[in-house]
């Protein structure tokens, strides 16, 4: 969290601008496991991308490139929906 601002430093009416606003790293919420992608088995079906509640599956164009662990909460859904078993849940460090 950045420093707390004064009332006269805030835009009127509580307006937030996506490009400026903070996004807390909710990856810390993971409770023991994180997804690991075996790109070799991935067929870029994008299902994991769509189902991820935390928009944490990173694409390169329309190909999967990885998981953004800053935001992944470790829900396992990607691994559940992956048709090829390319995603496995492994113990978080």
């Amino acid at each position, binding site marked *: 969290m950045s420093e*707390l*601002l*004064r*009332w*006269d430093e*805030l*835009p*009127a*009416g*509580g*307006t*937030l*601008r*996506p490009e400026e*606003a903070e996004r807390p790293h909710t990856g810390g919420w993971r409770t023991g496991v994180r997804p690991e992608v075996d790109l070799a088995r991935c067929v870029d079906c994008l299902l994991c991308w769509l189902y991820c509640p935390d928009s944490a599956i990173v694409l390169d164009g329309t190909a999967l490139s990885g998981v953004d662990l800053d935001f992944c909460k470790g829900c396992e859904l990607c691994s559940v929906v992956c048709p090829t078993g390319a995603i496995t849940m492994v113990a978080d460090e």
Partner: protein
Amino acid sequence: MTATRLALDPPRLLTGGQAVAEAMRQVDPDVVPVYPITPQTPIIEGYAALVASGRAHGELLDVESEHSALSAAVGAALAGARTMTATSSQGLALMAEVVYIAASLRAPIVMAVGNRALSGPINIHCDHSDSMLVRDAGVIQLFAESAQEAYDLMVLAPRLAEHPDVLLPVLVCQDGFTITHSAEPVAPLDDDAVHAFVGAYRVPEPLLDVAHPTTRGPFAMPDYYFELRHQLAAAQHAALGVFTELAEEFAEVSGRRYRALEPYALDGAEQAVVCLGSTGGTLKDAVDELRRQGEPVGLVEVRSFRPFPADTLRELLGGVRRATVLDRADSPGGTPPLFADVAAALAGGGVELQSVVYGLGGRDIHPEDIRALLVGEKRRAYLGLRGESCPA
């Protein structure tokens, strides 16, 4: 007053409701969500007829409740459209939740209010309990004494609401029936003058600017709520200055000059009466009569109830011995609202204060009635009530 620059149409006999509808035609807002309630109906019916005939061009939204009327107005105003609405009494009560939110989202909506007593019992006539219900909401409230003033304030209101230092909803209040349904001479500005005065609508970062997305109405925890709320106090404070500037500019085109507090016969006054709304006119007659009889009585009419010009009031009433505050609303078990504001403004000063509650639910007040007040002994009196008032 430079008469050459005035841009007035000849006076017409218009009710306050008609006068406000005429102002709406001239300002020509983009979106007008409404829900009918007596005595606001002449305003929205007048406006609806103008839209049907093609003389006004806004989207008239006939919504299904006042809560939705103001909600739609918030959406429209933040989307980027000039937005007006109108209501009274139960309507204002039902939208109370959204009144607060509209202010905090800084939606510069203009709302005409035909003041009417709140239920219960249900009653359709004038008092100010509805306006008082939202006196903490952060919205601006201007009170008109007459149909002419209702018209004028309705033309001035968009400028005030939309001013970048203000960005708040403005309620233009007129007494239900007494003004909304009472026909009086009204001299409107001509259309061009209104257009020139009001100008184009502009809000920061309209939602419809889809290329520049913003998040509006987020959730604030204790770490930021206080600061975001305080912006409203600051905007209200700014509004006092902006009102004065705009009133000056308005005077140049109309020849009619408004002040946040209108002093009347205060020079040399030993006693002063403070009031809101149409009663101000009645009291002017009364004060004139008393002055003729040698009584040093003056009047302060509160035009801008929110922001409440506490500092100015202190200055105006610095010299009087006693001030009688007329409230057209009560707070059972509490303090009549205008009296409370006045008492707070004058706290610590030496002015003797008396509170008078009158006119609830349309009970009449006549110029003659004021004399009794000036000698009343009670801290709080109920003028016009049948029966000994309580607390005695």
